[in-house]
């Protein structure tokens, strides 16, 4: 269990850095900056 918790912390750090390196933050920013009609319940 101890090793598993430590693994999760390491995964957090690696995920964040690798995510930025592969452009994940750009995707998040792009999606979060777009007005989402689904969230508003509009359309269709």
């Amino acid at each position, binding site marked *: 269990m101890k090793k598993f918790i430590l693994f999760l*912390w390491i995964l957090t750090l690696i995920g964040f850095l690798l995510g930025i390196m592969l452009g*994940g933050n750009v995707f998040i920013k792009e999606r979060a900056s777009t007005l989402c009609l689904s969230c508003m319940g509009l359309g269709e």
Partner: protein
Amino acid sequence: MKRKWIQITSTLVHNGYLGFLLNNNTYTGFLKSFCAPGLNCFSCPTSLFACPLGILQNLFVSVRILPWQILIGSFLYVLSFFLFFGLLLGRFICGWLCPFGFLQDLIYKIPFLKTYVNLPFRAQSYLKFLFLLLFVIFLPLLVINELGYGILWFCKYICPAGTIEAGYLNLLLQSSLFYLTGLVFFLKTFILILLLILCLIDLRFFCKNVCPLGLIYGLFNKVGILRLSFDLNNCNSCKVCEKVCPSNLSIPDEINSLECIRCLNCLKICPTKAIKLEIYKPYEVSNH
């Protein structure tokens, strides 16, 4: 410091963009690259951050059309936010930081019939799992249109935070959006009203029975840095802690269960200080 003031501060931080007063548009700056800890729609005109649940669904609906490196990068990036918030705070986010949790606390203060709502077929034990697996993961992933895109099922058909923050606020700001209102909008409004009435009767009904984000954070309650501990030697079995628990948990057995929203009511009311909030080392395992 009182929980109420932290909730107010957190709500203002989640929704700190005032530029919409000048241009009627949502915030599109640097902070939108980061996920917020609480349930707060990114299409809200005041929202500064991305909603983790909305982004997770956006990722699933785009699986078939994104280049693999962007897909993996986005998945790892979003995962790191879930892990970071979960491991650091767990469901403290629900109890102390989530703007929609704060709204539910405010609604519950209105004098009305107060009781624990028992759902039929013991649904309270599995309903939020159903919402997470079905509406957040599998339906956005599997049901696609002719362009290869999926639908944000939870955002589109359920999320009450989106209905208030994105739906109604944007309709107030941009009257041109009115022509897009239809059956889905009325369905979402009906769900919003139903959930608000249930939250008026039963404290944090949405957190306890529906919220997929709370469920994800709850998985970390046993392994996060902040955990509750229980000293059996100090306990006089008055059970007053169970009476003030909004999640109706059995203490001490379920003190770190995924249902605990970390409001700390039990800790505050305990006359013998048997319940403590402890900061664990990242690799430490607790008994409860």
